[in-house]
C-alpha cells in the first residue's frame, strides 16, 4: 500500500513529486491552482446553524461526533463496539482567509458488527483545504459498514485517504456519495489480509459546475479465498471533471480470489469529462477477476420510452440520471444508510430543467 506523504507534503516541491507519480492531467492543474494561494492553519471554530441543520438528525444525536476543521481535541482512535452505530461529521467552516487543516484518525472493530455514517460538509466562503487520513482495521470475523456522504460547497477542497485492512473471514462494506467541492480526492485502499476476507464498495461521484472529483480505488487481495466487489457510477455535468482509477491486485499465493470492478460513467454536457482507468494486476494462479469501465451519454432509447409515456424531456432526463445512480446502491441493506444516500441523491443530482 502507498504510504502517506510527509506532514509537509503540501509544500510545492513535494507536491510535484506526488504528481509526477500520478501523472493525472487535470489533478495537476487543479492542485496547482489551489496552491497559488496562501493558507493559514484552521482554528477550531463555531458551527454556523445552517451547517448544524445538515447533520442534526434526531436519531443520531446521542451517537454522533462532530469534528470542525479537523479539531485535534477529538479522539484519534475510535474503537467500535459490537452493534455500535456511529455518526461521524467532518465540518469545514470558512473564515476570513483561506485556511487548511489536517487530521489523522483510526477506526477499529475487534468483533461483531458496526455501522459508521461519515459525513463531510462545509460552509461557503473563503477557501478551506482539508486533508483527512484514516486507518480502518476490521478484525477477523468482524463486519464493518461505512457510508460516506460528501456534500461540499465549491470553496472546500478535501483530500481523503482511507486505508483499510480486512482480517480473515471479516467483511468491509462501504458506500460513498461524492458531491461538490472545488477539488475532492478520495483514495480508498483496501487490503484483504486474511483468508476469506470480503470487501465491497458502492459509490457515486457527480462533479458539476467546475468541480473536480478524483477517486482512486485500490483493492488488494493478499490472502486466499478473498472477495472484492467494487461498483461505481460517475455523472459529470457542465464543466465537471471526474477521474476514476480502479485497481485490483491479487498477490502471489492469494489463490481463490474473486475480484470484480465495474464502473459506468455518464456525461451530461459536451464540456464534462470523466477519465476512467481500470487496472488489473494478478500474481496468483487460481483467480476469478473481471473489470470494466464505460463512459457514455444518456440512453436515447430509454429517454424516448419515458417521453412516449408522457414524461416531459427534462423530467425524463432526471429520472434516468437518478436511476443510473440509485442502481449502484441496490445492494445496500441497511435502511438508515440507504435512506440517507437516497435523500442526498435526490437533493443534489441535476434536477428537471437544470441540465443542458
Amino acid at each position: 500500500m502507498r504510504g502517506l506523504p510527509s506532514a509537509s507534503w503540501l509544500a510545492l516541491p513535494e507536491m510535484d513529486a506526488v504528481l509526477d507519480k500520478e501523472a493525472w492531467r487535470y489533478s495537476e492543474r487543479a492542485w496547482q491552482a489551489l496552491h497559488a494561494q496562501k493558507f493559514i492553519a484552521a482554528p477550531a471554530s463555531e458551527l454556523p446553524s445552517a451547517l448544524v441543520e445538515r447533520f442534526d438528525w434526531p436519531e443520531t444525536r446521542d451517537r454522533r461526533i462532530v469534528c470542525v476543521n479537523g479539531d485535534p481535541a477529538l479522539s484519534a482512535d475510535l474503537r467500535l463496539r459490537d452493534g455500535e452505530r456511529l455518526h461521524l461529521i467532518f465540518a469545514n467552516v470558512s473564515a476570513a482567509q483561506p485556511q487548511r487543516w489536517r487530521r489523522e484518525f483510526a477506526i477499529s472493530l475487534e468483533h461483531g458488527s458496526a455501522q459508521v455514517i461519515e459525513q463531510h460538509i462545509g460552509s461557503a466562503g473563503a477557501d478551506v483545504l482539508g486533508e483527512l487520513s484514516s486507518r480502518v482495521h476490521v478484525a477477523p470475523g468482524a463486519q464493518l459498514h461505512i457510508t460516506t456522504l460528501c456534500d461540499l460547497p465549491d470553496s472546500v477542497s478535501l483530500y481523503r485517504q482511507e486505508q483499510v485492512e480486512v482480517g480473515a473471514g471479516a467483511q468491509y462494506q462501504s458506500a460513498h456519495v461524492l458531491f461538490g467541492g472545488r477539488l475532492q480526492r478520495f483514495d480508498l485502499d483496501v487490503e484483504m489480509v486474511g483468508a476469506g476476507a470480503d470487501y465491497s464498495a458502492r459509490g457515486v461521484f457527480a462533479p458539476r459546475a467546475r468541480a473536480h472529483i478524483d477517486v482512486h480505488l485500490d483493492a488488494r487481495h493478499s490472502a486466499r479465498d478473498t472477495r472484492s466487489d467494487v461498483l461505481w457510477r460517475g455523472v459529470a455535468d457542465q464543466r465537471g471533471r471526474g477521474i476514476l482509477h480502479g485497481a485490483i491486485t491479487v498477490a502471489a499465493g492469494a489463490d481463490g480470489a474473486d475480484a470484480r470492478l465495474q464502473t459506468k460513467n455518464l456525461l451530461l454536457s459536451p464540456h464534462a469529462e470523466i477519465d476512467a482507468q481500470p487496472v488489473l494486476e494478478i500474481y496468483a494462479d487460481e483467480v476469478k477477476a473481471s473489470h470494466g469501465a464505460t463512459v457514455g451519454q444518456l440512453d436515447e432509447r430509454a429517454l424516448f420510452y419515458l417521453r412516449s409515456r408522457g414524461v416531459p424531456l427534462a423530467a425524463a432526463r432526471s429520472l434516468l440520471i437518478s436511476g443510473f445512480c440509485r442502481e449502484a446502491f441496490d445492494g445496500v441493506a441497511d435502511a438508515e444508510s440507504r435512506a440517507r444516500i437516497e435523500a442526498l441523491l435526490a437533493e443534489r443530482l441535476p434536477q428537471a430543467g437544470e441540465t443542458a
Partner: protein
Amino acid sequence: MLKIDNLHVRVAGKEILKGIALQVNAGEVHAIMGPNGAGKSTLGNVLAGRDGYELTQGSVRYNGTDLLELAPEQRAAAGVFLAFQYPVEIPGVNNTYFLKAALNAQRKYRGEAELDSMQFLKAVREKLRVLHISDDLMNRAVNAGFSGGEKKRNEIFQMALLQPQLAILDETDSGLDIDALKMVADGVNAMRDPKRAFIVITHYQRLLDYIVPDFVHVMVDGRIVESGDKSLALKLEEHGYAWIAERKLVGAA
C-alpha cells in the same frame, strides 16, 4: 381521428415510407401487416415521435392538429400510445415512480387534477387485477430483468393505466406464447371503445384471431399495397406475402 396523407419518411438518407395514406376513425381497429423491412415499425415510431426520422413529404393530422409538430410527451398527453416492439429496460427507475410521473404529467398537460399516491395505487391495482399481473411488478425497475412475455404484458398494463385514444401496438404478439397472447388480446379487447382506436402492427394472422380488426392493410416496401377487411389477413396467411408482391407487379404492368 388520425389522417395520414402521402407520408414519405427517410432514415439515414434512405426512404423507408414512400407515400403512406391511412385514415383511422374513433372506434376502429386497423391491422397493418407486411413482411420484415416493409416500414411497419417506422410508421409506429414516426407516429409516437421518435427522433431520427426525416419527413420529406406529406402530413399527419390527429384530432385536427399537426401530430408531427408535437413532442413525444405532448403526443402521449393528447392520447397517443405506442406499445413498443422492444420495450426498453431501465434499471434503477422504479415502475411505480415512472408511471405515476407519466400519468400525472399527462393529466397536468390536459388541465386535469393530478392523482395522489392513494388514488394512483388504486388505479394501478385495478388494472393489475384485470390483467392478471402480480403486484410485485410495481416494485421492480422498468422492464429490468423482465422476460419477453413480461415486457409485452407490461406494455399492455401501461396502456390500460394511461387510457390512450389512439393505441399503436408494434408487434406486441412477437415472442409470446399462446397464453400470453390471449392475455394481451383480452387486455386490448377490454379497452375497445367507440372513442378509442387501435393500430395493430403484426406479422402474423394469429393475433387477429383474438383481436378482430375492422380493417387490414398490407404494407410492402414503404407503401400500403392492399386494404380490406379481416378476410384479407386470412388470404395472406394462406398465400404468403409473395402473393401480394406478385399482384402488385401485375397491377403495375
